[in-house]
């Protein structure tokens, strides 16, 4: 499996961050950075990462299935994450999530057929004082109203 030169560079830097007999430390960051490129954690990626780190594939599976940000099926180009945890719930997060479901025609951890959007109801993302919050890929959006969300999604649709 081949990665882009940028990713290779990042992985090289990553592996240099840990003692040489502790390469396994690089596992989670390596999966995260690789997933940014591959879209999700494919079986091929599991085997590749296992090979690069020198561990059995089951140890990669253990980790991939534990962390929610590691996906084992394709996500959209724009992964819309709506928080409904307590601070967001109090400020309309639940309604915002339901609105987003309707807007995108998707449910929790679903990806649109055209692969542009995917949706996830997420746990607290650390934007509680500026709730309700939405993350699209890694970008935060604060004080999101249904109208603001519609605008955001429509803009992204145009870009796409």
């Amino acid at each position, binding site marked *: 499996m081949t990665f882009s030169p940028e990713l290779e560079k990042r992985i090289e830097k990553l592996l240099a961050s840990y*003692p040489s007999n502790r390469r396994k430390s690089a596992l989670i960051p390596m999966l995260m950075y690789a997933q940014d490129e591959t879209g999700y954690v494919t079986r091929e990626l599991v085997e590749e990462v296992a090979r690069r780190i020198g561990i059995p594939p089951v140890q990669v599976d253990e980790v991939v299935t534990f962390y929610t940000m590691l996906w084992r099926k394709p996500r959209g180009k724009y992964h819309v994450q709506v928080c409904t*945890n*307590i601070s967001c*719930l109090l400020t309309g997060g639940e309604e915002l999530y339901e609105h987003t479901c309707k807007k995108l025609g998707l449910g929790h951890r679903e990806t649109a057929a055209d692969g542009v959007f995917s949706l996830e109801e997420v746990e607290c993302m650390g934007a509680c*004082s500026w*709730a309700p919050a939405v993350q699209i890929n890694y970008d935060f959006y604060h004080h999101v109203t249904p109208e603001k969300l519609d605008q955001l999604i429509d803009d992204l649709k145009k870009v796409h």
Partner: protein
Amino acid sequence: MLYNEPSPLETRVLTRRFSLPNSASIDTALANGGYQQFLKACGMTQEQIIDEVKASNLRGRGGAGFPTGMKWGFLPRQSPKPKYIVVNGDESEPGTCKDRVLIENDPHLLIEGILIAAQAVGAKAGYVYIRGEYRYLIDIMEKAIDEAYAKGWLGKNIQGRGVDFDLYTHTGAGAYECGEESALLESLEGKRGQPRIRPPFPAVAGLYQCPTVLNNVETFCAVPSILEMGGKAWADLGIPKAGGTKLTCLTGHVNKCGVYELPLGFPVEKMINEVGGGIRGGRKMKAFIPGGSSCPVLKGDEAWPLTMDYDAMAKAGTMLGSGGVVIMDETTDMVKAALRIMHFYAHESCGWCIPCREGTTWLKKILTRLDRGVGTTRDIDLAGDLAKNMLGRTFCPLGDAAALPTISIVEKFRDEFEAKLRKVQVAVPAFPDSPLVVMQ
């Protein structure tokens, strides 16, 4: 950048460089006192640094509130193994968004705090563990680290003082449990974020089984100002037994939500009404969570007379926690709140031990039914009882964190649960389909 207006009532110690232009750059930091306390630390003995931190009464800002100086003192002075500094930036406690603000606005303050801690214990390398959702902070942190290396504040022979220190970032990938220190270390070692059996504690056997200082971002950020002001003066910012300031996240039904740096012992009433601009719509406060959803919930009336510090909160039967204040006004549906909180813990339970793994999901199912009005008074009793059966019997504090809010909400707001029982309007299946944690 800042996402809310600062309040004039704040005591800006950790956040004092925040309003400066380019506050995250090393030039801004250096022009405004940055790294000077590290130089001071270079001239101090390890004991002197630790004593200063002890004098400051600084307690861990992640939520547990363990005295920081004491924690550092647990590291063996002589060790054949390398020592590590690990920064807990896995901020995931619902209601908490302060570490994010610290790293985003002044990463060099964090680096300076790390360097001082490294001096205090003799560590040569450190990792900043940042939750996966904060990817942009990884970029900010890495830029800051690169700047620090370029200007000789990291690496070999720092500023000619004969001190070596290397610092790296490490991203998480979505797991609340990794905020627990031993689970964070597991995650940092490339494993599932499941906590370890303790003892041994990280100070003795932490990262790679080596002595490790592991503190919250805010804890490290507090250290430079402690050396600058002197431990005693820093302690006096707060109240006896709880020194200094605390970044407090006002969330929920207040007019001016935001992150504010307030001295410990700050009155709740003043915090809500003056810093936070009062309850939304002038309503009454129904419930109050002092520091993240793991704390027992207080009724509004219980909370008003309190002050924001460890002892006052403990006396009131809750905890100061992480600084994530959640304020709920009288319109809040407490059954839904209890359900949402339990939904979170069921989702985040790592599954290692039986009571937490099975208890959180069972409770979530019961609370789901109660929220939909499908249940009996026995279900309300059962919810409270199950939470108590988890309490104190799980492997790590997550079980308690899930149990405590449930116990308190069921006890204090039982009438709301009962009211819902009587409001069954639609035919709901007897066993509502309550999807579990759907991972894929």
